[in-house]
């Protein structure tokens, strides 16, 4: 068996060894609870590690001091953004706007709020996954609390026009939340020029640890604390901070560089071009313009084959990718993202997502294309689909 090729970085990414190294002292020596300056020395040391990570992340976002709170990950950040702002405005406003292709943590939070009596407008996307900002403008009413959009989609990589949507929300005096879990450190996210009120980010998608994320909350934004207990995280999120994870998250942000993005974009082009050229009946899912697509995302459908068969056979050739096919998902439904983009069931079932990182090698691209070609050709020979 050859070395494994991991191309499922939109699910999670390989922790950078430097991240793991930075975290280790916080398990072994500096394991105390991050405490105030009036506490014992180990607690103060842990606090320093936490504060330093917060500073790195705040600086990367070009955000205000004390505007970033740590959470257990992107899912919690998204839950807090939606539920926290909805409850903070309860009795005064009752409407939220989300796109149909947001991550499940936003979609299911919105659906839960709907059951609690809030009104939700679900915005359509086009066949490449783009939101028309005019649809957001038309959906906002004087009851709208929040608009939530995913910066870069997790399945097809579509980058939304967040700057334009932010201006629309600002003009309408409506809060704007961005789920930037896939885009943070990969795409420009400068909160001095982008007037977003809430931004969700996570560590494990950028070579940091799992179990740690953050939510940017623009100072003055009304948000109801959701997890009660102590007064952690500026009294917005109770619970002993995951100091080791937070330090690792900070380190992963510190290590992220533009040259990595450029490198990944090069791999993306090679892979996308190679699959199209080498395998007949391949269509690209998501944006065709690479500038409007997440640098690490390649999503294609191979005609006349089931995605889960391709995934299983690639796995047995040592390649890790995923599919939007129904059998692969825990819900047993085809990808809701692709259905919202107007795809046929066959196209969704045949979709394969490759998501790249800086740890992928150029040499891997050729092997992936050859393996896909072999698998698709073999499966087509026995395929009942014509």
């Amino acid at each position: 068996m050859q070395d494994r090729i991991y191309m499922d970085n939109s699910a999670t990414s390989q922790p950078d060894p430097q991240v793991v190294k930075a975290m280790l002292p916080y398990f072994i020596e500096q394991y105390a609870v991050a405490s105030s300056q009036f506490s014992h020395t180990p607690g103060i040391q842990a606090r320093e590690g936490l504060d330093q990570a917060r500073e790195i992340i705040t600086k990367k976002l070009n955000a205000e001091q004390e505007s970033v709170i740590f959470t257990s990950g992107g899912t919690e950040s998204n839950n807090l953004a939606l539920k926290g702002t909805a409850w903070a405005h309860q009795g005064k406003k009752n409407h939220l706007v989300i796109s149909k292709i947001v991550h499940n943590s936003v979609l299911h939070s919105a659906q839960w709020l709907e059951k609690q009596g809030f009104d939700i407008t679900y915005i359509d996307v086009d066949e490449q996954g783009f939101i028309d900002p005019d649809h957001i403008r038309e959906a906002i009413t004087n009851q709208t609390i929040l608009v939530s959009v995913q910066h870069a989609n997790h399945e097809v990589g579509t980058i939304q026009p967040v700057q334009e949507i932010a201006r629309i929300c600002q003009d309408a005096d409506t809060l704007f939340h961005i789920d930037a879990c896939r885009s943070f450190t990969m795409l420009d996210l400068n909160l001095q020029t982008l007037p977003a009120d809430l931004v969700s980010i996570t560590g494990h998608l950028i070579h940091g640890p799992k179990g740690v994320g953050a939510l940017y909350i623009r100072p003055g934004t009304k948000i109801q604390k959701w997890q009660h207990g102590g007064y952690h995280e500026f009294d917005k999120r109770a619970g002993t901070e995951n100091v080791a994870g937070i330090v690792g998250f900070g380190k992963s942000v510190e290590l992220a560089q533009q040259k990595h993005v450029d490198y990944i974009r090069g791999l993306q082009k090679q892979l996308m071009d190679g699959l199209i050229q080498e395998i007949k009946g391949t269509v690209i899912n998501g944006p065709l313009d690479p500038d409007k697509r997440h640098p690490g995302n390649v999503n294609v459908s191979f005609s006349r084959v089931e995605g889960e068969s391709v995934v299983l056979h690639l796995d047995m050739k040592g390649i890790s990718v995923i599919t939007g096919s129904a059998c692969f998902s825990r819900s047993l439904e085809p990808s809701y993202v692709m259905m919202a983009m107007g795809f046929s069931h066959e196209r969704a079932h045949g979709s394969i997502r490759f998501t790249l990182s800086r740890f992928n090698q150029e040499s891997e691209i050729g092997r992936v294309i050859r393996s896909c070609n072999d698998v698709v050709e073999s499966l087509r020979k026995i395929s009942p689909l014509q």
Partner: protein
Amino acid sequence: MDPDIIVDVIGETCPVPLVEMRKAVLKAEKGKVIEVKGTHPASKQEIPMAVDSLGLKLLKTEESDGIWHIYIRR
């Protein structure tokens, strides 16, 4: 042929036979013989493909009364 492990996927369709075969292969010790028996025609063709990808040995394939049996050495 006496298999060490039997994977019964009779009545199951794609991709279940392949998934179960992979599960058995991952658990089996080196040298053990795995028999996969099923009825789905596409799986009968897909499993030998997977055996090849995994670098395993396909010992025998036989079929009777609509049930195929694939023997693999881990």
